Structure formats: C-alpha cells, structure tokens
C-alpha cells in the first residue's frame, strides 16, 4: 500500500473539524480567536478535499485508509477504515463547500446572539459528523457520525430557544431521529451477526447473494434509519420544523448537508452493501418514495406562510428528485441525481441564506407580514432571485441543467423498461418543477416585491460578510448551470462511475482480487454509458440571449425608452403613486399563503387533508416512522 501524503487527507479533513470544535470550547470566549479557529478549520478541511480531486476524481484512485495502519488480518477487516472513492469525495466536497460558506455567513449573522462559542462548537461538530459519515468506510462509524450530527443538529435547532417553536422542533427531531438511529444501530448489529464484520467493503463482498431474512430486515432497518436522516417522505415534517426553527446558517447545513448524508448512505446501502438496485422492485421503491417526496412536499410548500418552512419543504421536494434519479440505476440517472444533489446544496443554501438575511434585518420570516424589501435590500433580492430561478429550473441556472438531465433519464428509463410507472414519475417531476416555480413566485411577491410595510421603512442591506457568503453560492449556481458538461465530466460522472464500481471499491480496501474470490454473484457493473436524448448548450444560449438583449436594449433606448420619469421629491406626487382605482394608495400587499387560491381551490380536499395530517403532534410523526418501517420491512421481505 503506497502511502502518498494525500492518503492522510481524508482523516485530517474530518479531524480538523473536530479539533476546531474542541479548541473553540477552550478559546471560545475570545471573539476573534473563535472566528479564526472556525474559519481556519473549515478552510483547511475544504482545501484538503480539493487537493484530493486530482487523484480521486480525475485518476480514479480509491483511497483506503486504515487507522493506525491496521490493515486486514486473516481476511477480516478489523481496524477502523476510511475509504474515499469519487462518490465519497463528491459528497465530501459538497459538505465542505456548504460548511465553508455557512461559516463565513455565521460570523455576522450570529453576532447578535449570545453563547456564540457553543454555537461554533456545535457547528463544527455537525460539519465533522457529516464529513466523517461520507468519508467513513465502516458501518458502525457511520452510526457514530449519525449520532454526532443528529445531536449537533438538534442542539443547533434549539439554539435560539426563544424563537417560535425551536424547542418543539428540536424535540420532535430528536425523537424521530432517535427512532432512526435505533433502526440504524439494530440494522448494523444484525449485519454484524451475519457477516462478523463492520467494514463496508467486506460487507459489500459478503452480503450480495447471501441474503436471508435477517439481512433483509437489517436492510429495511438501515434504509428507514437513513431515510430519517434524508427526511424523505414520511419524515418530512421534521425537516420543515427543524429547518424553520434553526438559525439560517444551520438550515443551510441541515438541508444542504444533512439530507445529503442520508442520501449518501442510501446510495451506499443499495448500490454497494446489498447491490440490489438492479431489481425492478428496488428501483420502484426508490422512485416511488422519491416521487412521493417530490410531489407531497411541493404541495405542502405551496400552503406554507413561513419563508423558511416553505424552503424546508422544497428541500425535501428536491431530495425527491435526487432519490428518483438515483433509483433508476442507470449511469445517466445516477449522474443527474448527483448533479441535482450538488445543485440543491448550492441553491437551497443560497435561499436559506437569503431567508436568514431577511430574518436578520426584519426579525420575521412570516410571508404575510413582509413585502417590498427589494427596494431596501437589492443585493439580497438579486441573490434570492438567482436561487429561486435555480431551484425552479429556469435556464440557464444550474437547477435547469440537472433537472433536464433528470427528466431525460427518467423518461428514457420509462421507454427502455416499458414500465408506465416511470412515465408517471416523469410527469410528476415536470409538474413539480412548475409548482416549485409557483411557490417561489409567491415568496418573491410576498417578501421582496409588492408593498413595503410601514414598520420596515428603516430596513437596511445586510452586512458585507453575509452578502459575500450569498455571492459565493450565487456564483456557484450560475457557473454550474452554465457549464453542465464540465461539471458532469469532472464531478458527477466520476462519482456515478464509482457508484457502479462496487468491486473496485471492495478490492481497494481488501486487496485486489478479493471481490472476485469471495462474492457469490459478480459485482454489478452495468455498461456505464451516458445517453442524452436532448440537447442543451447553456453557454451558447446565454450568448445569444445577451446579444439579443443588447440589441433590444439599444433599440429600446433609441426608441425613447429612456423617457423615464420617476419620483424625485420625498412627498408622494400622485403621479407616481400606485393606481388604486383613483384612490390614494394604501398599504395593500397581495401575497402570503393564499396567493394561488385558484389552484388550491380545486384541490381544497387534498390540502385540508394534508393540513390535518401534519398535526404537529410528535406521536403522529413517530407513528409514521414506525408504520414506514413496518411497510418497508414487509415490502422487502416480500420482494427478496
């Protein structure tokens, strides 16, 4: 085993975060020092992972790292291992980027809170937990990291414990999260009982083909356990509560990072550990849950009247896209799913930061109370619009590029497999997209446009640090949207290749030839081809758009477009007043929850049913979790 320097980078990337958390406990009372430590640790972590891009992503190396150099002994992986293939690195990079930006944002965002030292400790714990989860090569370590991140996330959700519902959200999250954790632990030990190893690679070699009732139940337990971390459908109310109550910088992590860790684990489970994705029934399970998440959460979001809660529901809706695409078990599907996962981290982070900026300046995120902030916060508005366009898939932003690939892959799968279920998944995906647009139109009308309420006359733009953080995300959104071919070639396709390279993963850890010798069925390695059935060249499109826009602008300015008159004096001239049927304009904001009543009216039965269902009682949510567990277990027992 060669020990190039970069072999140590994964563990360092994790440990530097925990070290930072530890140091902040000690030095956290000094303001500058604590910012310095936090920034330094997240920067170092990000830098270490970027350094890994070249060997892992481009050269396809899989880094297997044994703690204390305790390699396999007697064919059993005893030591604690970290294994970084392109998939892990991909998620690791997402985590590191989101954590970095969130940290930059936190410095000014959290400046009015007390106990900020604890905040940074928990923040770095959360970051380290997720980072450890995605880089770990060991099932039990994954459990430990899940517990760490759940703890940190719960504590951070309740961090502003005077905010409305923060404690309640934290408690619900803790209860259902613990049900999930219990499931993960039970599943882990059941696998251990069967295979006597916890190492991921070795389990992946031993389990496929040797399924019995115990492993199937373990699979169901693990699947549900990690689903609670990804917040997919029966667990989505927790996400809404937790995202809504947590500080915005934490919402970025919960939605952009925590959900990804759950997704990562589901991919690892289904593509590596059990290698069941080739089965149509398993694909059905993932696509079904993905489509359900997509649709239910987007309709729930339409009914929300809190900015962050709405974003939270959208977050799950987008996770539904990822899950659906990943569940297709095609190279294109996985690649597009990962692409969308990345974009989701970027644009949802941006949107949460914008929501945080609004909260920071106005003290509320209630859509019914806000309005007209675009005049006071132009930068935030611009960044919000970038995020909103991205999430609703408006070309040329990144959301479109990935959604477009998702549609193609689902529909292609539908046509190739002849299964009409995938057809409906395509339709749901396309309709969800326009519903997403609708709810972001609602937000932009309710928060940033429309009339400015009297009490927000003196609102100002957010400080530069927060703008910088939003700017980082916004630039990333545009760049990844404009160069989808580069992103797919250098980021998502290597990761998708890694998904279909289970035997490589096993061999890197256990020594070459191990997979072939141990496995009773050969590892799944379908022909990895990236078929595109459509064309989309965003750069050329943008170029044409810019030329056209320029031409039109020139014509417009030539044609008296500049004869613009606007109000100059402070007292309102009636000419520049709004037209109110002749009346003097009064404050009248059209927005908030009922903006799309024409749509909701036709679906009032559905919406009132959903409203009743999301009762806010923790027992109900626990019941959903238990029922989901029972159903998935039953389903798996039937199909395997």
């Amino acid at each position: 085993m060669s020990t190039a320097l970069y072999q140590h980078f994964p563990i360092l990337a994790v440990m530097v975060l925990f070290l930072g958390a530890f140091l902040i406990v000690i030095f956290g009372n000094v303001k500058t020092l604590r910012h310095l430590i936090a920034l330094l640790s997240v920067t170092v972590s990000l830098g270490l992972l970027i350094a890994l891009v070249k060997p892992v992503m481009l050269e396809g190396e899989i880094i297997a790292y044994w703690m204390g150099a305790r390699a396999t002994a007697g064919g059993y992986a005893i030591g604690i291992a970290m294994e970084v293939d392109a998939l892990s690195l991909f998620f690791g990079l997402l985590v590191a980027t989101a954590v970095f930006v969130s940290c930059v944002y936190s410095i000014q965002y959290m400046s009015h809170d007390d106990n900020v030292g604890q905040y940074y400790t928990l923040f770095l714990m959360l970051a380290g937990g997720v980072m450890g989860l995605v880089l770990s090569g060991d099932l039990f370590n994954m459990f430990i990291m899940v517990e760490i991140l759940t703890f940190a996330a719960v504590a951070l959700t309740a961090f502003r414990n005077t905010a409305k519902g923060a404690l309640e959200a934290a408690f619900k999250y803790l209860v259902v999260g613990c049900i999930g954790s219990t499931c993960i632990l039970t599943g882990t030990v059941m696998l251990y009982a069967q295979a006597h190893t916890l190492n991921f690679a070795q389990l992946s070699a031993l389990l496929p083909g040797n399924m019995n009732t115990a492993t199937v139940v373990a699979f169901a337990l693990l699947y549900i356990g990690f689903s609670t971390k990804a917040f997919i459908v029966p667990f989505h109310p927790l996400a809404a509560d937790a995202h809504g109550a947590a500080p915005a910088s934490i919402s970025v992590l919960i939605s952009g990072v925590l959900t990804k860790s759950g997704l990562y684990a589901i991919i690892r489970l289904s593509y590596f550990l059990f290698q069941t994705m080739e089965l149509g029934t398993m694909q059905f399970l993932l696509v079904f849950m993905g489509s359900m998440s997509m649709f239910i959460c987007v309709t729930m979001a339409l009914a929300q009247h809190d900015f962050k809660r709405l974003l939270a529901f959208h977050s799950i809706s987008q996770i539904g896209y990822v899950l659906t695409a990943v569940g297709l078990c095609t190279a294109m599907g996985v690649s597009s799913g990962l692409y969308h996962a990345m974009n989701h981290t970027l644009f949802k982070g941006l949107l949460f930061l914008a929501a945080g900026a609004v909260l920071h300046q106005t003290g509320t995120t209630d859509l019914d109370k806000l309005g007209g902030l675009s005049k006071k916060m132009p930068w935030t508005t611009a960044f919000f619009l970038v995020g909103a366009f991205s999430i609703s898939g408006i070309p040329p932003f990144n959301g479109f590029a990935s959604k477009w690939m998702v549609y193609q892959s689902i529909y292609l799968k539908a046509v190739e497999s002849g299964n009409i279920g995938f057809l409906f998944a395509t339709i749901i995906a396309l309709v969800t997209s326009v519903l997403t647009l609708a709810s972001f139109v609602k937000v932009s009308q309710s928060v940033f446009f429309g009339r400015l309420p009297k009490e927000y006359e003196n609102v100002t733009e957010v400080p530069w640090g927060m703008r910088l953080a939003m700017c980082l995300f916004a630039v990333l959104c545009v760049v990844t949207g404009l160069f989808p071919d580069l992103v797919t070639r250098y980021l998502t396709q290597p990761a998708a290749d890694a998904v279909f390279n289970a035997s490589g993963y096993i061999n890197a850890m256990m020594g070459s030839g191990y997979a072939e010798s141990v496995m009773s069925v050969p590892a799944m390695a379908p022909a990895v081809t990236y078929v595109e059935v459509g064309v989309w060249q965003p750069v050329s499109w943008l170029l044409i758009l810019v030329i056209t826009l320029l031409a039109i602008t020139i014509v417009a300015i030539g044609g008296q477009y500049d004869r613009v008159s606007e109000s100059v004096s402070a007292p309102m001239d009636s000419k520049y007043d709004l037209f109110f049927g002749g009346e003097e304009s009064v404050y009248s904001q059209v927005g908030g929850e009922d903006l799309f009543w024409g749509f909701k009216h036709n679906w009032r039965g559905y919406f009132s049913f959903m409203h009743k269902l999301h009762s806010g009682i923790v027992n109900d949510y626990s019941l959903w979790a238990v029922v989901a567990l029972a159903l998935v277990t039953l389903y798996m027992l039937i199909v395997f």
Partner: protein
Amino acid sequence: MSIVISALQYLGYILIFPGFLFCFLVGLLLSGIDRKLVAKMQKRVGPPVLQPFYDFFKLCGKETIVPAAASKTVFLMAPLVGLAALVVLQLFIPIFQFTAFSGMADIIVILYLLLIPALAQILGGAASGSPYAGVGLSREMVTIISCELPLVLVLLAVAKTVGSATGEGLSFSFASIAAYQAANGSLILRLSMIPAAIAMLMVIPGETGNHPFDAAEAETEICEGMLAEYSGAPLGIFKLSHAIKMLTLTSLFVALFLGGIGSGIAQLVALMGLTGPAANGLTVLLGAIVTVLLCIVLTVVSISFVHAVTARLKIEQIFKFYWTVVSGLALISLVLAWYGL
C-alpha cells in the same frame, strides 16, 4: 475572415431572419389578424390589420412612469428580458428542416424557456408593487401551472412517438423530430397524435393569455393585472412579447405536428430544377412563408375563433379545464403512443 462572415451570418439570424425583425413583423401581424378576425366574427369591421404596429409605436412615444413604490431596475428590465428570451426561443424552433441554431435546445428546454417571458411579466408586475399586479400574477402563475401539465404530456407523447419510430426509443431533439416528419409525413397524420394536436391547440390560447383564459390580464376587473403600472415603451414591449408568443406557440405547433409539409416544399424546389445554395435559400424562404401562413391559420382557429365564441373563465375554471379536459386528451395521446399506435 470566415469567422467574421459566420459571425455576421449568426448576427443576421439573431437580428433579422428567424430572429428579432421576423418576430416583430410576423408577431404583430398575427396579432393584427387576430384582432381583425375577432371583430369580423362579432360582426364588426375591426381595427386595421396594422393596428398592433400603431399601438406599439405609439407606446414607444409615451412617457414611462416608474411608480414610487416600484423597484426600478426589475421594473424596467423585465420587459426587455422577456422579449429577448422569446426571440431566442423563436431561434430554436425549426422552420421545417431549417434552424438558425441547430442542436442547441430540445423540446424540454423549450418548455422551460417558455416560462421566462411569463416570469418576466410576473416579476415586472411584482416589482411595480401594485395590488392589481399581485392578483394578476397570482392568476398568471395558476394559468402557467394549468397549461404546464397538458403541454408536458403533449411533448412527452411526441418524444415517444418519434423515438419509437426512429428506433432511438426516445427523442427530445427538434432535429430528429423534423427529420422524422420529413421522411414519414406529418405527425398529425398518426392516430395517436390527433388528441395531442387538439390538446396543443387548446394550450395555445392559455399560454399566450388570450381569451377565454385571460383571467390574469382582465382589463375590466383588475386593470390588466401585472401590466397595471406599466406605461410607455415597457408596456409596448410587453404587448409585443404577447404578440410574439402567439407566433412562437403556433410555430411550435407547426414544428411538432405539421413538419411533413417541409418535405413537400423541398420536393417542389427540387422539381424546379434548382440545386445548391439557391435551392436551400428558396426552400427556407418558401418554408418561412408556409410557416407564416400556417401560423395565421392556427391563430385564427385556436385564438381568434375561441375568443369570439367564449366568455372569460374564472381562474379556478381555467385550472379545472386544463387539468381535466385538455390533460385528458393529451393523456389519451400519450397512452396511445406508449402502445405504439
């Protein structure tokens, strides 16, 4: 040198032929014909066919008032962006076999690009701060949601039909749709595509916001909704965008369902014994003329006629209509296509 020439050629594409000037002239012409024919059907004389041109130029000469409550940048930029996006959209829609920028977009991209003009209008209206605009944008968004489902179903049905016929399994790209129709005749001749074509005809007035689906721009009740605060040139540009949208959707219909006529034109040119660039030029020219004529016919059928015989629907009725009747038709088509008819 050749770079300069091709750059000039592309600039010509953008600014003149399927681009800006073409859209401007044909779009406003379509709008004028629509107004004239609606008047005819109501037993009126109606405005001159060039009336939309007069309207546009008049609006260019008017003062543009930015309300004090509006966010100036978005308010003034929204119409320009919307128009630019529409013109670009028109560049991607093939005129039979000819596309100015081939291989840059497919039907799913078109589906999303179609959202941009509507979105520009929505954001412009939102930026004006008027409550009328608020109500208008709410209705516009619901109209978009309503039209989206049938449009999606139609496009998927077309993609499936073309894909299974050409053996690719699935095709979203305009190039292969056009090539397929040139070889095998128009898609509308297939049994499975007839409901889809009817559904698409019903989608056209909804997407363009024409009667009876114009709840979003109801002049009499909400002062034209999102446009309530617009005046002068920006208003003119919105009106122009509305006219061009009619051209875009009708030519999309031609490209999707009537592409077979293109091969007829090519044969006609071949019969005339022309070859080389002259033949290409003539084919494109004839194709453009035929497209414009077809667009006029489609406008008359799907926009003017419907306008004349119906009364404005309420917004929830629009939603219901599209998600039941029109989507049902499109779904029939999709299912038929799925089983290879």
